[in-house]
């Protein structure tokens, strides 16, 4: 880790950076070694560059990442999960999951998708830990039960906690996807009978841990993190919860396309009423957008098709810390809203609504390059801690 070939340095270098190193030969070799058509390859590289929101000259860095002699190994562990994060990953578009799995990484363990089963599956995981210690990426989905000797989740007869300790402690980077892997999520809701915890609490002290909360995680963000890691061998800038700033830094309410209605006092009063049909603000129907951060309104879901508020239902703050405990009841309107009355012009809303994850990544990658990791204060919404429960 942190053997970062900074693209910033490359940009400053007199010979013009990585791309100057015979990109054509590299490209040809890449095409051959990956067995992909030129068109597919160019599309693929462009999509990576777009995901990272890098200027085109970084194509070289991406090509380099792609043409390593061996592809970095990834293992995806599932514990007390619903597989919603796995499903969400299957919806990744930029790059699509097939490219992650076939071209970019060697995705060697993932219960829901892998060919091998039983002993062969266990052996595959063990081999990664043995042969790639300190090099592989571990993705974790689901909470980890810590009560009663681990009997609430076993795989191959082994307790989830023991598997997590064994595999994650030897990973180069750990990515916790979804609310459950981050903070225990729904499984850890009070009073938490299985002693479920998120990865960082179940296995404390892990290095290079990134939390991608959300119920489920948004694959656009996860793809961006993976591509960033592959290209620069480093994680993007993180906040206090080890979440990437580009995705979790902004309040939903400030990015919402219904915000002008909020500011003008135009609210949905009843489901299906005229205001609902006109796309008015959902605050009175319980929307938690004013208390939640996430880039949900800008990145959206399923190829940027929509997000919950756009489709007519209030936000439940699914990317907020311990949201099951702190944000329900979901249909009760928030008592007070920070920033109430702040006027936002239509122009600003338009800009925010069209900005994609890329724009945030530009700022964030730049931030990563020129200064130390930014660790801002927690936002007001994040400081509320739910009452503690067993296992914590």
């Amino acid at each position, binding site marked *: 880790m942190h053997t970062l070939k900074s693209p910033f340095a490359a940009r400053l270098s007199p010979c013009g950076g990585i791309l100057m190193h015979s990109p054509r030969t590299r490209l040809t070799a890449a095409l051959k070694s990956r067995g992909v058509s030129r068109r597919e390859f160019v599309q693929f590289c462009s999509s990576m560059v777009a995901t990272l929101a890098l200027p085109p000259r970084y194509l070289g860095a991406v090509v380099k990442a792609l043409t390593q002699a061996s592809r970095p190994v990834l293992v995806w562990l599932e514990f007390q999960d619903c597989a919603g994060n796995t499903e969400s990953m299957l919806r990744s578009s930029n790059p699509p999951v*097939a490219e992650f799995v076939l071209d970019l990484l*060697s995705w060697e363990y993932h219960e829901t998708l892998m060919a091998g089963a039983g002993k*062969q599956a266990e052996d595959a995981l063990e081999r990664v830990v043995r042969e790639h210690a300190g090099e592989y990426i571990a993705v974790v989905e689901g909470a980890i039960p810590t009560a*009663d000797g681990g009997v609430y989740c076993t795989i191959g*007869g082994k307790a989830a906690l023991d598997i997590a300790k064994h595999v994650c402690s030897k990973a180069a980077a750990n990515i916790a996807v979804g609310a459950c892997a981050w903070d225990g999520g729904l499984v850890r809701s009070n009073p938490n009978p299985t002693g479920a915890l998120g990865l960082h609490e179940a296995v404390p002290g892990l290095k290079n841990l990134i939390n991608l909360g959300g119920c489920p995680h948004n694959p656009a963000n996860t793809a961006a993190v993976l591509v960033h890691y592959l290209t620069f061998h480093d994680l993007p800038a993180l906040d206090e919860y080890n979440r990437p700033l580009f995705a979790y830094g902004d309040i939903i309410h400030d990015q919402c396309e219904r915000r002008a209605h909020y500011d003008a006092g135009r609210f949905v009063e*009843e489901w299906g009423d005229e205001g609902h*049909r*006109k796309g008015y603000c959902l605050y009175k129907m319980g929307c938690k957008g004013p208390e939640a951060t996430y880039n949900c309104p800008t990145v959206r879901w399923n190829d940027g098709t929509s997000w919950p508020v756009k489709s007519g239902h209030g936000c439940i703050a699914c990317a907020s810390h311990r949201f099951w405990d702190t944000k329900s009841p979901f249909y009760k309107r928030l008592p007070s809203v920070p920033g109430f009355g702040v006027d936002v012009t239509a122009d600003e809303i338009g800009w925010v609504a069209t900005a994609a994850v890329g724009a945030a990544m530009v700022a964030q990658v730049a931030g990563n390059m020129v200064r130390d990791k930014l660790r801002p204060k927690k936002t007001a919404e994040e400081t509320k801690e739910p009452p503690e429960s067993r296992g914590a």
Partner: protein
Amino acid sequence: MARIVVDPVTRIEGHLRIEAQVEGGTISDAWSSGTMFRGIELILRGRDPREAWIWAQRICGVCTMVHALASVNAVEDALGIEIPDNARLVRNIIAATQTIQDHVIHFYHLHALDWVDILSALKADPAKTAQLAQSISDWPVSSEKYFKGVQDRVSALVASKQLSLFGAGYWGHPAYRLPPEANLMAVAHYLEALQFQKEFIRIHAVLGGKNPHLQTFLVGGMATAMDPNEPGATINPERMDFLVQVAKSAIGFVNQVYVPDVLAVASFYPEWFKLGTGVGNYMCYGGYPQGSIKDPADFFLPRGIVLDRDLSKVHPVDPANVTEYVTHSWYEYSGGDQAARHPYNGETNPKYSGPKPPYEFLEVNEKYSWLKAPRYQDQVMEVGPLARLLVAYASGQPEVKALVDATLGKLKAPPAALFSTLGRVAARALETQLLASRLVGWIEQLGDNLASGNVRIHNGEKWNPNSWPKTAQGFGFFEAPRGSLGHWVEIEDQAIKNYQAVVPSTWNAGPRDARGQRGPYESALLKTPVADPERPLEILRTVHSFDPCLACAVHVVDARGHVLARAEA
């Protein structure tokens, strides 16, 4: 005599373990165990019943909307709420979309590798592969060049010595019998299906904001506001056009790729139309209301039970006859573990008594699973696409009957062939075909309502909890991709008092009951040949044919240890 353990059973949802006894190369006994429990105390107790669906939905992220739908159905049943016709249509559209997408992913990404040897695809002749593909379908993506490209991609993967997801497969196993060309075609369609599923599911994104975990259900209707003239409405003419277009694309993929592939693969494995039979009782609550949800006789997929493989008679279903045993499950009942309980007075007191991890074998004569054993009038029932199809077929549903007979004709097989491992796979494909054409119809009906100014999407009469009776109880049901799903809710003083779910994979993957009757997986595995105990590919074939989804086998209990909700899918 050898004991085989498959754990983890991969390419499923959740954590499943199979132990099997093998004698003389065939399975003489089998045990199915769910090895994960998420007992989430107080999860629903005391909460607002209107948001129960948001919590219940997280039972499963694969069939991600099924528990949401069963939950709002249950609360609406309890409170006597009738939903507007538009909400019924949107729910049918969302449900059919879920089932179609789920079935496609199941076949290509979870099940195909039990029949398809990826490495054999390297030996295929791309020209002959193109001929094969063109002989079974007029799907346009079938040129020699295309298949050569896919083959190159597989070769590159193999040459890199990093096989990624495909590294630990049973390649070269003697039970693989497809010719190299069929294997190559299947690999190509594995990749195409990955693309298809994410494009197609944008229907969920339009109507539910996102997939997985849509955020659009409401007790009383849906949050998808409709208006023919408002761009801010969730359902407006522009979005209707989009939905129709995406739904039509599914018909192409399903009819020209998925169904022909299933039939082609099946034709190489005729003995699997005899293996994996299982219990032979099939149950379906009925799904896709055409009018009122109170009228199951009028559902697109009718309600009923087929007993002992007898297709001449359909028996009625009464949810009052559903009970659950914990005799072999890691729970205890206050009245003793020999008697079954109905969900309305269900309990879940988790009590693990299995071996301490790490362990080698379960104590299968005692308790051995986190799943309970549901029974209908004390009988074991298989649920799922095959059960739905058989009940509809035996009921004489004309569309189902025509399609099933035509398919059996193509396969030159009698209806009895359906009671099998491949019968389940074929039933899933046929159901997908039926739903894909229905889906377009439902979307067009919704479009007609929109155009005629019928925009009612929610019945708000009972939205205010002050309008509720002091106590109420209701049953909500739904035919999830993997089978019959039921939620039972009890409401008192505007809050949830008790909540229970009995879910498809509990029916199918559950353990033995007090009488020692095996669950459907366990029965279906009997007599299965196992050529190589070190690589039990045949076990995966039959278990995967049910499309296991184990996360849901989770009970939700209150602080005193009573079950509030139990879940699976």
